[in-house]
């Protein structure tokens, strides 16, 4: 039954409603007034911007993008050197950002899922450790964690033969070396050649510190999302499945996860977008991501407005892409009604 929220009051005097109390007029007057104020403010700010930029000789132009950058980027997936133009530098930064975000997403999801499931463990110690991890990580700023990983952990690692060695992994101050497919598609582990480590895959310590920080931080938030999703499945579902003879894994795979994912996926979307935005803190650990390249570009060219526009456009597009993928995933896991 639809209830009219505010029926027009009968006029006691029987006269015409004055326009300032007419419900058909007032909303439009309010909107027009707010719109006018906002438009005036924007016009004022833009007017100042144009005037000030003209005075500084920095009026909006994109020609500087084709000038040689003149700075080098320490690690880049696409070929780059100081003679190449600014747009190539920004592109290299964007590729670095995307690389960190993609690897971070996978790592944080794995860690978060494990910790989220650990909080349902029968083992009291494991359960408590999962809680402690989440509570410690969530209450310490990410930037502080990143500089901790970089300056305290990764930069104090030993080099050469003293480096930390695990099967297939070597962790040294000069970088993180991983086993992989070497020349001739042979599986190759890290090797010490003349006191220098060599391996098919080498990550810089900057990248490793950024990844560790992002994965540990986002992992805690994703663990909470996963825990919430699993907790949302009633206990009776587990009991019913096991009374039907399903094992623990079959119950998880066929009964619990399909229901939990409906709660988890929207939460993951938020966490993935935060991770993408948080990757911009890479500048604190010396990893040349998009923001770090943009900052250098601004310092060299003074093109503040253009650089900020590029940054905002890049991050908004990245968020949008993540949202699109996650919304597609969300459609997949939602209840299919006939």
């Amino acid at each position, binding site marked *: 039954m639809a209830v009219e929220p505010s029926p027009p009051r009968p006029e006691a005097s029987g006269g015409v409603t004055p326009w300032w109390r007419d419900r058909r007029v007032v909303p439009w007057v309010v909107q027009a007034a707010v719109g006018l104020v906002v438009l005036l403010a924007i016009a004022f700010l833009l007017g100042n911007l144009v005037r*000030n930029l003209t005075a500084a000789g920095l009026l909006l132009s994109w020609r500087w993008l084709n000038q040689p950058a003149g700075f080098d980027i320490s690690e880049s997936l696409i070929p780059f050197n100081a003679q190449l133009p600014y747009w190539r530098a920004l592109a290299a930064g964007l590729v670095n950002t995307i690389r960190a975000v993609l690897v971070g997403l996978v790592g944080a999801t794995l860690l978060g899922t494990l910790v989220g499931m650990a909080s349902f463990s029968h*083992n009291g110690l*494991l359960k408590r450790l999962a809680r402690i991890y989440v509570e410690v990580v969530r209450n310490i700023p990410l930037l*502080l964690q990143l*500089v901790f990983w970089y300056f305290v952990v990764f930069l104090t690692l030993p080099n050469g033969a003293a480096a930390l060695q695990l099967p297939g992994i070597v962790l040294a101050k000069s970088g993180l070396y991983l086993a992989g497919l070497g020349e001739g598609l042979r599986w190759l582990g890290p090797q010490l050649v003349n006191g220098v480590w060599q391996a098919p895959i080498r990550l810089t310590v900057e990248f490793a510190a950024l990844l560790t920080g992002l994965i540990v931080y986002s992992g805690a938030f994703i663990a909470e999302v996963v825990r919430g999703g699993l907790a949302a499945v009633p206990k009776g579902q587990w009991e019913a499945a096991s009374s039907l003879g399903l094992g623990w894994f079959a119950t998880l795979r066929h009964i619990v996860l399909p229901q939990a994912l409906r709660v988890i996926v929207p939460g993951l979307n938020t966490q993935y977008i935060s991770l993408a*935005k948080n990757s911009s803190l890479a500048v604190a650990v010396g990893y040349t991501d998009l923001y770090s390249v943009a900052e250098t570009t601004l310092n060299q060219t003074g093109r503040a407005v253009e650089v900020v526009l590029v940054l905002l456009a890049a991050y908004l597009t990245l968020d949008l892409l993540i949202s699109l993928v996650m919304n597609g995933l969300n459609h997949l896991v939602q209840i299919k009604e006939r």
Partner: protein
Amino acid sequence: MPSLIRRLRSELFATPGDAVISIALLTILAAAAAGFLHWALRQAEWAVVQVNSTLFAVGRYPIEQQWRLWLLTALLAAAAGATWGMLRAHPRRDRTGRLWPRNDRLAVAVLIAVALWVPFALGLTPAIQLRWWLLTALLVVIRWLAGRFGAGLPPALKRLLPIVWPVLYLVGMVLIGGGLGLARVAPAEWGGLLLTLLASSFAILLCLPIGVLLALGRRSDLPLLRWGSVLYIEFIRGAPLITLLFLGQNILGFLLPGGLAPDRVWRAAWVLTFFAAAYLAEAVRSGLAAVPRGQLEAARSLGLSSAQALRLVVLPQALRVALPAMVGQFISLLQDTTLLSLIGLLDLLGVARTVMANPAFLGRNAEVYLTLAILFWCCCAALGLGSRALERRLDPHAVPSRV
């Protein structure tokens, strides 16, 4: 004792698999704890924190003006004690009017322990140690006085109490920044914990009204308001804070007529405010969505105007539902102030970076970052605890309403 053993067995050694996991975890934990203790007691050199404690607390605030900060801390302690005591002076029905409930005794014990240990650990001079003890004593004594005699105060005085905090905030701004006869201390000289707390409290206070307005705008029937709010909220939430701070530092000067642009610290504080407002708006919106539409309709049919219905009926319920999410945002905001160090301001982390650049303290990263981490953890955990206590207090099902 047997119950402890039984509990350990059921929690840690219920099955062989559990036992293996438990033993492995216990070994790792023991090794980590031993390694940490060895480092903290033998290898770490805590002088870097002790020598620079003033820098971490207030940055480069002029020494001859620091008495103003001590005065402000004393006023804050007195106000906190008075508020705390007055809350206990009016017993709720479920607490049977005890002057010192268990949690309060615990809080006072923690407070006194911190006041005794921190000045000692930081190696402060006796004169400053004495100030810390006096401040703590002031808080506890006023808490006791207010709790004991607060109920007997004249009602006119009691009504003044909620106004104390906003007034104190303004007084604090004058004490910190100068004016009204006090020498001016430029924002560039504020730093350390002072700057962190100032920037976050400023942003928390101001993002609240802006966020509520944005949330109302997003749920408004008027298309222009709705789309304007949506555009703002989604734009801000899509951009990383660091790019917005970058925008504030580099473009705000171009957007405002010459000389009107605030200085770097205030620019950052305003960016934090407008950033937090977008996130807060989403928290408030979830609260608004939880209030049934019938509440607004009932209020309107009782003759309340739209504004009255919103202010007296809808918002109080919505904000109560949104409280946990809002405090979550405040906690992130407090953590986000560390980003000020990336744009060259001397917040806690910024001070840490300058201290690290000093050759005398080269390589003492672990000590400094660990101290900061503990400080942030305590602040954020305290906010979380406070939020949960407030939730319980505001829960209509926990407290029978007074007729």
